[in-house]
């Protein structure tokens, strides 16, 4: 896919997120919208995977640690072909395969179960160790939120990955600066994140989490780091693409109402037109 095609795909995924959330009537808005570009880069440019054969042994493993941004995960999986796009409207409803938080035994393409924060990086490490033991070449990608850095288990895992020099592991942090109770730096300050990870033996790359080329280049660069795991610190705008949601922590944990969704979708359609014309 070209950069323009990827940006268009991210825009489609944002629209799908809005539709899913308004239909579900509950769920998180800001995080999924903010991570649409990173997910698009991973699922449509960076990772080796076969949506028609979700358990293909050579696939890169993708672990979503912050399970609450499930809508962007499900939309990415659907657009990649793991299940029909129309199934997205079943999000959070009785009988669905798309639960409020991801569950590996239900959703094609989902590797683990997550939701309670701080657990994903450890599982990604387990998969990276297994790949190393088996001398397999695939990589393990783990998406983390910034708020979940407050969990102790994260730092146990960060310490382990640095100590074991897990160079087949790439973590990507959604640095959107918000969590449920407010800005991260006023709830429980996280900075300096880059220096903290570096002190634990990681290679850290900072990117604009809405710049497709930067995200893809950082993932490529991580493959060349042989002595360390890599953290891609992706600076994102929570609610990205929907003006009234951007930067507002109140949108962390709630869905849009139907009239708000209509406005959001209109904005995203305009944004789509802009992307199309910009590249022409």
């Amino acid at each position, binding site marked *: 896919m070209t950069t323009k095609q990827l940006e268009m795909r991210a825009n489609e995924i944002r629209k799908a997120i809005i539709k899913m959330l308004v239909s579900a009537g509950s769920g998180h808005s800001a995080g999924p919208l903010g991570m649409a570009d990173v997910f698009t880069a991973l699922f449509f440019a960076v990772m080796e995977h076969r949506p028609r054969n979700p358990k293909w042994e050579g696939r890169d*493993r993708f*672990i979503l640690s912050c399970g609450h941004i499930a809508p962007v995960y499900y939309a990415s999986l659907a657009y990649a072909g793991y299940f029909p796009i129309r199934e997205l409207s079943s999000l959070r409803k009785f009988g669905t395969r798309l639960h409020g938080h991801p*569950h*590996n*035994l239900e959703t094609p393409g989902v*590797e*683990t*179960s*997550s*939701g*309670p924060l*701080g*657990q*994903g*990086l*450890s*599982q*990604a*490490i*387990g*998969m*990276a*160790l*297994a*790949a190393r*033991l*088996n001398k397999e070449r695939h990589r393990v990608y783990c998406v983390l939120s910034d708020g979940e850095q407050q969990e*102790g*288990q994260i730092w*146990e*895992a960060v*310490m*382990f990955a640095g*100590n*074991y020099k897990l160079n087949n592991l790439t973590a990507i942090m959604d640095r959107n600066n918000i969590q449920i109770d407010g800005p991260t730096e006023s709830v429980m300050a996280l900075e300096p994140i880059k220096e903290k990870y570096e002190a634990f033996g990681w290679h850290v790359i900072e990117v604009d989490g809405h710049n497709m080329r930067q995200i893809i280049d950082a993932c490529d660069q991580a493959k060349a780091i042989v002595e360390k795991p890599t953290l891609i610190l992706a600076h994102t705008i929570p609610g990205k693409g929907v003006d009234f949601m951007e930067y507002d922590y109140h949108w962390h944990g709630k869905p849009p109402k139907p009239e708000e969704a209509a406005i959001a979708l209109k904005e995203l359609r305009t944004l789509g037109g802009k992307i199309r014309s910009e590249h022409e």
Partner: protein
Amino acid sequence: MSNYFVKDYLDEKRIEQAPTREGFGKALVAIGEQDERVVGLTGDLSESTRMDGFQKSFPERFFEVGVAEQNMMGIAAGLALSGKIPFITSYATFSPGRNWDQLRVSVCYSDANVKVIGCHSGLSVGPDGATHQALEDIAITRVLPNLIVVAPADSNEAYQATIALAKYEGPAYMRLTREKSPVFTSSSQPFVVGKAIHALAGDDVTIITAGPISYEVLQALEGLSDRDITCDVIFCPTIKPLDQDTILKSVRRTKAVVTVEEHQIDGGLGSAVCELLAEHHPVPVERVGMPNSFGQSGQPNELWATYGLTRKSITDAVKRAIKRKSS
């Protein structure tokens, strides 16, 4: 029935003594030889959880996690979801104590094939005191869907159970002990997950027990002053899933039950038995266990005496249960 025991198993002076953790450690090396998928992880407790044998034999398949039980549980989940069979060891108070949420979500909910080995359970940890005496581990594990819970009676049964758990597909918790205890079960008996053992036949009361305290039950019965009382004894090393058929078959005949375990009286084997009987065949039940209390430092026998985990407590419970039957 009788081939469940070693010869002269009641001879306390001559019976072999070994901690259950030892049987585990030897078995892990044995299955490590047979199955390359087996990997071992520990949280800075390799020697005392008897992971050290595996560590020496298979250094490339051993992972020292450091003092980080939550991370250890998660790493094990990731390894299991990649086709490995991870055994993780620590003290039961830390794993599954400290990392219960990781056990619930990363392992059980995902149905990850992780074997959680909790050492140093029970009062017999002794001098370390209450913080290290795991007396709640059965309660917090048997409530989790997809998880099986195993408490071997001696080192031999721990050996057999370890082999069986490696072959069993799915999450499992096994509780082990530090202190030496009599090795009274016969190695000719294979361990079958979910199967209780009808160890002794009797008519007046069914005694259901698990863990090294099972041997105390046998000795207590030898010391029963009333020789007319006979007890049906069921060893129940798999606490979840409970072997309902074996238990109900016995209880329908005896119509009274005593449970004996080195665990809090609430939430453990005794509670599991009460749940079963309340639904299927209500009879008087007397539970011998830790009486809703924390322990303290001391020698195991001092602690057992203080908290009522003695042979006399067992025989008293037997008499009470029989008395309640007729009242």
